Structures are given as structure tokens and as C-alpha cells.
């Protein structure tokens, strides 16, 4: 086994990583046992790709806003298309969106569009954004048959209606229909760790990632997360491309930190995830990832674009924390045991409750693993307001 693709986390304690992010381990993880070692067994490419995470523009995040991009829960595809074009040009410095896309994608690529359908139908990757991305890919010569819109669970894709809403000829792929269905996972690419004494300790990477796709465009949503603190670029490709990940949660503890970072560092996922376009049309500021409570969903009318998932997620985390503070909700970093509930219904109605000691530190941990920039002061955050 190559040294590069076998990493042991022993000695890389989360407490130390969290200490480096400015919060003490004791505050972060009251009573949580030390994370176990994680073995990362990837399938590295013969030649590392410069496009792989953190990609061509480490630390750069382009935020694009248009006040009419979503109105009364209806996303405007023409406006979103314009936002995407302007954002891509700003990210790359190119004068045309086609040239911007060509920085990442070639006509012969097999392109996976990794959506986030877990909040369907209330908050999932907007089909309008997916369609505009498909349009951009077709415009630079990628045939429709080379485009695969995918996510982990087929039934969530169905609930989101994607099978009807993307252009004809594009493939839709649910990696599995339900739990315990491992047929579409690659047993040669996995992360292995035993968190709570579970019998199956490996998370396997989807075959579509290891065997079929050559590039991945990641379309996460702008959501808080009951366990990870927020779910953004990192969690969308980590927990959405590997199986057997729910075992990292056992109330009130969760090992989303550090597992998310290690999953994202696993090859070939890391090399193929070349672009991250966060759908910030809606912001779920409490109750994520799956909520239908519109009280906690704001229309934020924004796209975040970058090649560095850590930087994008850091901006996301800052924005969600600010929104929660403005709404009088407890912090995503809150670790007061008095605020814990094991009643899911109560959590989804009450922004002063937690189901887990959340782990937003997973973003900084990913930064420590070389996946991007998590220091806000070092992030090149560019804002575009369109009208």
C-alpha cells in the first residue's frame, strides 16, 4: 500500500485540531471519547490532478446575490444562469463563462453532478441550478450522455423530482435505494474506523466515483446540520458518496469531525471533485439536514462558488452562525448538556435545542488535512450583487 493513501489518525487528536481552531477540546467534546484511528484506503490516480481539492483557487470564494433569484420559493432559472456565469468568470478571471468552464471540464469528461437531495422537497439542490450547469457543460461540448446527476439515495432523488426535471439524455443515478445495499460501492476504496463498537467498520466509496466519473461538480445546499454543525461542500461529497456513515452519530456524540475530512481526502474522490457550487437560494438555519419547517428556512438568494470546499464551508458556517445569533438561537458550537434533547420533533421545532454536541470543527479539521483554507482572514471572499 502506498504511503500516500494510508493515513493513520493516531496522534492527530481532534482535541488538538479543535484547539488550533480556537476552541478548546474540553469545550467542544464534553465526555466524547477520543476519536479512534481512521484508516484511509484510497485508489490514487497515477498522476495527481491539479484540479483536485483544494483545486485551482485555494481560499477563493465567490458569493453571488440577486434579489429576484428566488421569490415565494420559486427559483428563477434565467437569473440563476446569469449568477452562475458571472460567478464562474469572477472565480477564474476569464471573460466568458465558456472559457471559465473549460478550466475544469473537457468535452471527453464523464461529469458527475453531485446534488444534495436529502432535504427534498423543501431544501435540496435546486433543479434550476442543475439545469444551468448542464447547459454550461453542453455548451463546451460535453455530450448529455456523459453527464450523470447523482446522489446517494434514489428515493430522495425521486422525491426531489430530478428524474423529470433535468434535460433529456442526462443520466440520473441513485447509488442505493435503501440502507444495506452495497452493490454500487467499491470495496477497494474505503475509510475504516470503529466509533461505537459497530460490526461493519468500513465506509465504502461509490463505484460511480471510482470507476465511471472523471470529474465531479458538487452542488451542496446551505444548511445547518444536527450533527456536523453545518452541511456544505465537504459533507455533501463525503456522506453522499460513501456508505455506512450514519454510524458516526450516537446521541449525544458524533464523529463527523474528523471523519468528513478523511472521507474527502480519499482518492479518487479528492482528485475528481474540481468545483463546488453551493446552492444558497435557501438557507436552513435550524433543523437541518432534513426539515420541512419553513420557519427555519430563509430565502437567501445566493450562490457560493469555489474550488476550495473548506473555504466555501467556512463562509457558510459564519453565515449560519450569524443568522442563528440574529434569530436568538443557540450557537452551532453550543455544548451545554441542558440544551440536548433526544426528541427529534422537539429539535425540529425549537432552535434552542440540540440532538448532538455538534461538530462544526470538521471544517477546520479538513483544512488541517490540506483540503483548503479555514481561516476567515486568509479567505479571498468576493461578493457580486447583481440586479
Amino acid at each position, binding site marked *: 500500500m502506498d504511503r500516500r493513501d494510508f493515513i493513520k489518525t493516531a496522534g492527530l487528536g481532534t482535541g488538538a485540531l479543535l484547539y488550533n481552531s480556537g476552541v478548546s477540546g474540553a469545550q467542544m467534546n464534553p465526555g466524547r471519547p477520543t476519536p479512534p484511528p481512521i484508516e484511509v484506503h484510497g485508489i490514487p490516480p497515477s498522476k495527481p490532478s491539479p484540479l483536485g481539492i483544494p483545486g485551482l483557487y485555494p481560499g477563493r470564494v465567490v458569493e453571488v446575490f440577486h434579489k429576484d433569484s428566488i421569490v415565494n420559493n*420559486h427559483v428563477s432559472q434565467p437569473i440563476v444562469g446569469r449568477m452562475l456565469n458571472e460567478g464562474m468568470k469572477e472565480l477564474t478571471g476569464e471573460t466568458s463563462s465558456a472559457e471559465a468552464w473549460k478550466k475544469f471540464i473537457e468535452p471527453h469528461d464523464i461529469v458527475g453532478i453531485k446534488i444534495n437531495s436529502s432535504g427534498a422537497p423543501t431544501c435540496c439542490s435546486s433543479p434550476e441550478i442543475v439545469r444551468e450547469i448542464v447547459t454550461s457543460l453542453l455548451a463546451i461540448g460535453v455530450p448529455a450522455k456523459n453527464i450523470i446527476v447523482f446522489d446517494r439515495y434514489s428515493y430522495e432523488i425521486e*422525491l426531489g*423530482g430530478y*428524474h*423529470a426535471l433535468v434535460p433529456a*439524455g442526462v443520466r440520473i443515478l441513485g447509488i442505493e435505494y*435503501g440502507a444495506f445495499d452495497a452493490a454500487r460501492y467499491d470495496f477497494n476504496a474505503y475509510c475504516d474506523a470503529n466509533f461505537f463498537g459497530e460490526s461493519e467498520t468500513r465506509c465504502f466509496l461509490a463505484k460511480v466515483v471510482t470507476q465511471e466519473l472523471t470529474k465531479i461538480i458538487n452542488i451542496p445546499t446551505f444548511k445547518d446540520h444536527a450533527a456536523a454543525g453545518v452541511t456544505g461542500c465537504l459533507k455533501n461529497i463525503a456522506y453522499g458518496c460513501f456508505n455506512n456513515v450514519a454510524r458516526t452519530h450516537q446521541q449525544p456524540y458524533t464523529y463527523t469531525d474528523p471523519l468528513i475530512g478523511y472521507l474527502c481526502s480519499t482518492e479518487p474522490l479528492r482528485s475528481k471533485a474540481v468545483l463546488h457550487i453551493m446552492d444558497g437560494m435557501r438557507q436552513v438555519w435550524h433543523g437541518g439536514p432534513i426539515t420541512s419547517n419553513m420557519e427555519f428556512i430563509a430565502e437567501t438568494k445566493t450562490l457560493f462558488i469555489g474550488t476550495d470546499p473548506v473555504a466555501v464551508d467556512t463562509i457558510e458556517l459564519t453565515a449560519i452562525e450569524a443568522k442563528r445569533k440574529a434569530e436568538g438561537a443557540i450557537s452551532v458550537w453550543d455544548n451545554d448538556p441542558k440544551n440536548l434533547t433526544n426528541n427529534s420533533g422537539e429539535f425540529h421545532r425549537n432552535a434552542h435545542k440540540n440532538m448532538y454536541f455538534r461538530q462544526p470543527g470538521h471544517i477546520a479539521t479538513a483544512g488541517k488535512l490540506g483540503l483548503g483554507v479555514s481561516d476567515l482572514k486568509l479567505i479571498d471572499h468576493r461578493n457580486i450583487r447583481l440586479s
Partner: protein
Amino acid sequence: MDNLARTDRDWVTLLSDNSHSGGVQQNTWKVPKGVRWQFRAGRAISSAAVLRDNVLYVTEIHGAVYALDADTGRPKWTRQFPDWIHSTPAISGNSLLFGCDAGKVHCLARDTGNILWETATHGEVLGSPIVRDEIVYYGSTDGRFYSVELKTGKPRWTQTLGGRICASAYATDKHLYLGCGDGKVYALDIATGKIEWSTPTGDGIDATPAVIGNSVLIGSEDFSFYALDADTGKVRWKFDTKLGISSSPAASGDLVVFGSKDGGIYALDIQTGKLKWTVKSGSAITSPVVFSGSIVALCAGGSVECLDSATGKQLWRAGLGSGNQSAPILAGGRVYTTSQNGTVYAME
């Protein structure tokens, strides 16, 4: 036509029969007292079952097809295909037809499970084929709508539309009506496939229409439910909900009922589009709605439930412990339903 329910014990397509009335024929409804049997396929089931001659036919996501004795749940035959199956089967005579995610439509002998013929498309066939006058009609996510002969699978005509076709069509003696991913409702000439008219909605369509009188009734992912003139496609009325609609409607008398992803079950006056009643469910509804006499039935949030069609009042509900978005069958005094955890239930 041989794909109409012969008796109140038959249910030969997704929505009962080719009229897609959802079982409006006079079934004898009895409140089920319990589970008569359950069959565990072992893998997920996304489609609805169909029923004829006391045999229940079920397709499973991972490619298995089962013929189950409707009294006992015991398999009469099983056949395994290599591809995923989302499509609800349809019955015509001794033919059992269904599509698969690899783009094929399979025709099996209903009594043996033997393959009679197969055809191919360039996308997934997710919807349920329909049969009328010995011709099979189905759409594909390749954007084409196909017509083939029932006996041989030989092509008759193909029509290219503007988007993915995921749901079933509604057939009359002259026309096929269907929704498309390009957001349009289409009326095709049933003999030639020629587009007679198309009417745009605000987003893609994933639901099967019902046609009552001269109105085409269908929901769209643009959050609205439409009644269109069947001759011209002109919008007669539309009704707004708060999220997309992929639930296929059922209609009876002057009432049309459908579910929305906003969790609402809506009953509207067919002539005016005026709301008669609405009931809030706890989860998004994508299940087709079916009628049985004065009963409205659908699946929502892991349960199957029956409502009084006059008031929306819940009359009966059975929690299944797993997600379920397929149409239930109400036939022969029983309720049959499938579940995403791979279980087929017969309740009476």
C-alpha cells in the same frame, strides 16, 4: 380492450385500469381488520402492484419480478432481471409489461414469467406502460414517446418531445395525454403520434393525468394543478399549492383529488377548480390517489390511509413502518400495498 378490470377483484394498471380512474368502479369497501399476509421481497419496492385473476404482480427495485397468490402471498413464479425497475407493471391479456432503468420494456407471459419480447430506448423507462387496442405506449427519459405492438414489440411510431418522460400517459380512442419534463402537457394522435397540441406549465411534469369529461387534469412541479380543455389544451383553471405536484390525481363525479409535496391532500371541483376540502399530512405526498366508491386512498409518510371523499375525514390508516409512495390497490375487499422496505402487504 383487454386491459380493463374485468371484475372488482382486478386492478390491472397503476391506477386500476386504462381509464386511470383509480378504481372508481363500485368496489365493496370494508375497513381492514388486520394483515392477511405480508411478503418480504428483501429489497426495496418503489412501484405499485397490479392484480388480475387473484394474482398480484410486483416489480422490485433491484430487478426481481414476482407473481404472488393474492390469497396467501406465496410466489407462483419469480424472475430476476439485471437492471433496476421503478416501473409499475401493466397487464393486458396474458401479457405483463414494465420498463426498467436500462431503458428496456419487457413483456412477460403472465402465467409463466417467460419473456415474450423486449424493446429498448436510450433512457430509463420509469413509468408504467399502457395498452389500448393491442398497442403498447410508454415514454422514456430519452425524451421520446414510443408505440409498439402488444404481440411482438414491433415499433409503430415514435414521437420526440422536449424533455424527459417519466410518467404514464392517459389513452382515449383518439388521443394520448401526457406530461413531460419540459413542463408541457401534450396531446398526441394515438394512431400516428402527431402532436395535436401542447400547453406549457411553469416547470417539469412527473404525474400521470386523468381525463374526465373534456378536461385533462394534471399537476406540475411548478406547484400548480391544471384543468385543460382536452380538445385545445386551453387552461380552464389552475389551483396553486405550496410545493411541486407529482401525485397523479383520481377523479370521481365532480371531484378530483391529488396530493402535493407540501403535504396537503386537495379535493377540487372538476368544473371550477374550487377547493372542496384539504387535509394536511405530515409529509410530502407523491403517491397517486385512488378512488373506491366514496373512499379516497393514498400512501403518505409510511402509511396507507383512506379518507371520506365527501369531507376528507380520515376513515382508516395503517402505519407500515417504512416509506411508501406507490399507489395502493383497493380490490375484492382488500387493500394491497407495497413498501420501500421491500414488503408487500395484503390487508382485509
